[in-house]
């Protein structure tokens, strides 16, 4: 059964029809990626799933819960966490406090401690910087904190919105291998990316967005061979 089911989602920003009937699903254990040009509606899709944007119609079902009436702050507790576009750290708080806030709803101190250690394992650099203000970190380090902050909520499904944004190629590769590692450790991932070739590389399935709807979908191996995709998104 799909862990996330999105059905015929419509979203408006005032007069702008940003999502025009988006449907897709994510199976447990998968990495699914949403790719597409700027303004295609990828972030809007994630923000709608997390309850930050109101939809005008459509349905979002996560792990059997219809998210229709669930306020944004209650969605995390169900096991669905988003690492938003632009990282959105709390800049004046330390790395430690940012990570702490990721575990805000959890009461199992020992479990949180274990997950913190896991985060420091994945990103050893954060351990040295844990007392530093998050706003003073480099872009790459901030992305690590953002992902760590998402992980310590112990999500079943992790939404990642452009984790590679603004990072040097080497760092992007590092972040992507961590995403694969997180997935191997059992977390399902929905990944939004500009960097289509890398995204298609690590994901199992992909949906290609064009101006508010899904234009192509399928297994990444198949899509990566499709000449239309190769030309429009992979630049080959």
């Amino acid at each position, binding site marked *: 059964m799909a862990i996330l089911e999105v059905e015929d989602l419509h979203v408006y920003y005032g007069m702008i029809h940003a999502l025009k009937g988006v449907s897709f699903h994510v199976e447990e254990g998968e990495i699914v990626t949403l790719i597409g040009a700027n303004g295609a509606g990828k972030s809007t899709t994630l923000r709608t799933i997390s309850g930050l944007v109101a939809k005008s119609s459509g349905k979002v079902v996560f792990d059997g819960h219809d998210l229709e009436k669930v306020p944004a*702050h209650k969605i*995390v507790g169900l096991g669905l966490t988003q690492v938003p576009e632009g990282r959105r750290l709390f800049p004046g708080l330390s790395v430690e406090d940012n990570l*702490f806030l990721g575990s805000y709803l959890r009461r199992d101190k020992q479990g949180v401690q274990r997950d913190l250690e896991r985060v420091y394992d994945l990103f050893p650099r954060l351990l040295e910087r844990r007392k530093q203000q998050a706003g003073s970190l480099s872009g790459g380090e901030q992305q690590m904190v953002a992902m760590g902050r998402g992980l310590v909520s112990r999500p079943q499904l992790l939404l990642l919105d452009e984790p590679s944004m603004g990072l040097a190629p080497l760092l992007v590769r590092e972040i992507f291998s961590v995403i694969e590692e997180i997935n191997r450790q059992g977390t399902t991932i929905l990944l939004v990316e500009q960097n289509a070739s890398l995204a298609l590389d690590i994901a199992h399935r992909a949906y290609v967005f064009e101006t508010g709807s899904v234009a192509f979908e399928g297994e990444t191996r198949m899509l990566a061979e499709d000449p239309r995709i190769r030309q429009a998104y992979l630049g080959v």
Partner: protein
Amino acid sequence: MEWYILLQQMINGLALGSIYSLIALGYTMVYGIIKLINFAHGDIYMLGAYFGFYALTKGGLSLGPALLLSMGLAALVGVVLERIAYRPLRSSPRITALITAIGASLFIQSVSQIGFGASFKPFPQAIPFQRIAIGSVFITNRQLIMFGVSIFLMVTLHLIVQYTRIGKAMRAVSMDKEAAMLMGINVDRVISVTFALGSALAAAGGILVGMYYNRIDPYMGVMPGIKGFTAAVLGGIGVIPGAVIGGFMMGIAENLVVALGSSTFRDAVAFAILILVLLLKPAGLLGKRQREKV
């Protein structure tokens, strides 16, 4: 001017300044979290004084319990005020909320005038007056209590904001509400807690000042409200340590003017400082340059 007069006014300034700091903290916390100048804040300070008055007289409580009770009731008033007057306007233009705040202030004053009577009431002396001489300067036990209780409350607030779960949530919400929601933080609840804390501090200030001046009236919150606001702006609105520093500076400035022989200007100092800060350093002493988020 003799040096001891100056010293004396410094002492008076620190005592009164601690109250301005308490009031400024409420302004600055609320501003930090919802970018609203809660103009009814001075009136919550006034309500605190009345709650204390009734707890001491009708309730027969001693000072400590009366203080706690009054702080609790004022916290409740602050939470209700936010819930019914400000929350529905949270996504309206800021000017709408600002006008509502002024309306709320006038409303509380009028209702208090009806409920408590328009004339002043003598505040019960919960502790006998004592004056301690150090050389040629004097400190009263009321000043010591005022200063001591204020500092205690400020330290407590600091510990809450820096180290507790709710305190971290407050800071997170003040920095990025959406990101806070993505952490599972109930933003509405955190805003309520902020109003509760700010109102409780103001109420404590109201009681302490009621004791200091021996009298309370329904308009007693107006000037301290303006001074507390000025203190918050002076320190950098939204910046918690700024409110504390701003409050003490206000208290001292005001009393220095008195020491210079012009007690008629004591209230004008606040306006002079406010205008100067807004002209010369609008972000305040500890404030960062304003980055408007769109």
